[in-house]
């Protein structure tokens, strides 16, 4: 019972983040891009004329609260899209490898090994160097570097399930491969795949922050949490709010995602109880 109350709280928090991200334009008190060069680095709670900066201002005088709200949009959007892309690509390749086996599987799994051998961050830096930074390219990079993780799990799971009697029966009854993969195997591996997806989601949020730290993520003046923190890093002592608030949000969101992932894993794999 205690366990259920805990997860309810986490899910509520998660929903709150998503809601804040969706409703950012309505909730943000100011334009997140509006600069006031004379109001740089004001502490939280500052009141200037009629304008109240609840979380303070950044190094160009922009309201931090508004930027954090819009930043939620970007973090969630990047992570969701990246996970979606790598999930689709990863599962597809994993299903194919697990079903057809033989040379196809060897080829795909060796490709997986190759991709996993490149340190993800180096591949990201290299790809951004060629494609240029920006939201779309960031998602492409993240999607391209993470799919192998899904493929591995999907492959292993597909191998196990493909041997089950009722799958064999369906095959003998003349069901098409696509139908079998889509209607029978996919639903059965959905559980473990969701577990991978949630842990990847948290990682994608952190990854985007890391790439922004290196200047390769979301471009200014767009306010991703990682970009705000990277820019605020040189003011860590003088303007602690620039790293603490987005950092706290980042941390809380990732914690919620990870806890959700754990809960999913418990549901899917009773062994871990």
């Amino acid at each position, binding site marked *: 019972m205690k366990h259920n109350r805990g997860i309810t709280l986490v899910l509520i928090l998660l929903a709150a983040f998503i809601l804040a991200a969706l409703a950012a334009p309505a909730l943000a008190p100011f334009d997140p891009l509006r600069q006031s060069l004379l109001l740089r680095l004001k502490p939280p709670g500052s009141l200037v004329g009629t304008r109240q900066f609840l979380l303070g201002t950044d190094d*160009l005088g922009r309201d931090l609260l508004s930027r954090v709200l819009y930043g939620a949009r970007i973090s969630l959007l990047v992570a969701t899209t990246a996970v979606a892309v790598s999930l689709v690509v990863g599962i597809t390749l994993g299903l194919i490898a697990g079903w057809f086996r033989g040379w196809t599987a060897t080829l795909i799994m060796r490709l997986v090994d190759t991709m996993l051998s490149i340190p993800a961050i180096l591949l990201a830096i290299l790809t951004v160097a060629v494609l240029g930074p920006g939201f779309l390219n960031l998602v492409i990079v993240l999607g391209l570097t993470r799919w192998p993780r899904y493929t591995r799990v999907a492959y292993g799971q597909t191998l196990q399930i493909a041997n089950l009697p009722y799958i064999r029966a369906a095959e003998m009854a003349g069901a098409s491969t696509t139908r079998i993969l889509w209607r029978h195997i996919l639903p059965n591996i959905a559980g473990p795949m969701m577990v991978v997806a949630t842990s990847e989601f948290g990682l994608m949020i952190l990854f985007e922050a890391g790439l922004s730290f290196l200047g390769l993520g979301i471009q*200014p003046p767009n306010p991703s949490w990682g970009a705000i923190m990277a820019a605020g890093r040189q003011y860590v002592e003088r303007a602690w709010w620039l790293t603490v608030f987005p950092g706290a949000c980042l941390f809380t969101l990732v914690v919620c995602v990870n806890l959700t992932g754990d809960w999913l894993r418990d549901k899917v794999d009773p062994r871990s109880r």
Partner: protein
Amino acid sequence: MRRSAGLILALSIALSAPAHAQTKDSLVVDLPGDVATMDPQIQWDTDSYSVYRNIFDNLLTRDTAGKIVPQVATAWRYTNDTTIVFDIRSDILFHDGSKLTPEDVVFSVKRITTPEFKSPQLSQFDQIIAAEVSGPSQVTLHTKTPYPALLAQLVKLSIIPKAYVEKVGDTAFNQQVIGSGPFKLKSWQRGVQTNLEANDAYWRGKPTFKTVTFRAVPDGATRLADLRTGRADLTRGLTPDDAVAMKSERGLKVQSVATERVAYLFVNALFGPTKDVRVRQAIAMAIDRDTLINALQQGYAKPVDIVLTPANFGYVTDIKAWPFDPARARALIKSAGAEGATVPFLTSPVYDRRLNEAVQQMLDDVGLKMTITVVDQPTYLKRRLGQPEESGSMSQGRWSCACQDADGVIFPLFRSGSAWSKFTNATFDAEVDAARATLDETKRMAHYHKAFEILHDEVPGIGLFQDEAIYLMKPNLQWQPTANEAFFVYDMKWAN
């Protein structure tokens, strides 16, 4: 097997050695990057020459006022417009005890100017077509055409030992350099630090410091932490915000100097909405220079009205920049039919992003939509130096030719045919060509005056401010940094 044993040994030594013991005889400097090469002739970057300038002497040098004064050469005279004779000191010894002779000077020049040597510095010295020993202590240089910036370039020529380099070869020379400067190379841990020790036989006198250590610390915040905990005595490259924060640190001193580096905005005159001169003039009137200097640079900058600093020869004082007048700018943009036009701004992380974003806001206020694209430095250079279509409509620049002469600034930036220039104006070309073809300073100033008048009217670039180099050091370190950002430890000493 020997190699891995060596690596293990290096690792254990590296990890067990105590932290650098600091005494009054030693100086520890934190630099953003490690030396790329010790050989002074095969690279062109600040972190390298901050170190090797202390190992080598240069043919000429600049004093603290910026005037060119003798170093290895004691005197010089022009025998005609393209021939110059230098008298060489006879009392200089290299670190291996051998004498510095005119042959070494000629060798140093010839090595860089030989294309097969692949020196990136070739462009700075390729006006020199011949160099020969013309007497027991004399060297003669010949230039292609009269070249007024020659002496400024020779300030950067490090003299290397011919016999030693020819004996050990280029690769070994790079590892174990020998110069004639105030410090010798003791050890170079690539990527980590460089250790120098005093050259007690130095011809100008023994240096104050017995040892100098240059540490490579890429992260700015970490460099500040090093200074605050006393791990380092000196660092350079502080941002204005860092300077303001460090000013209140009792155990540290902030020192700044106006440099020859000019902060400017490039405006593409050949492509895009900025092709129209009215749009360019409007942009010039949209920029609030004073707010940029006060708010972003925290006062660590001096405004300039042209794309040049007073530290450069050729600076004119009677040409004023377009005034800050957003209303007039808006009207001008309307009349040019450019309201709402998209102005792509290309930049890289090397340049201060806050300046870019502030400019974006200012342009937005006069009706132009500026979009910022950030790419990494190699890609940025490739595009900026490419076709007008790829280089964006605007860009930020922080230009220094390390020559303190207008020829090194507005010639490459705006003369047609140069990779950086997205501007063509025959009169301007004629003026800067003439200014570099004569040694007469009055004539040169007249040409530059005309050139800057054209730049003012045509606005292919907007001068913002003269950059200041900000250093952080222990309060009792006495040193006057110079406008050309030279880093001579010989000139530093502890007070009292």
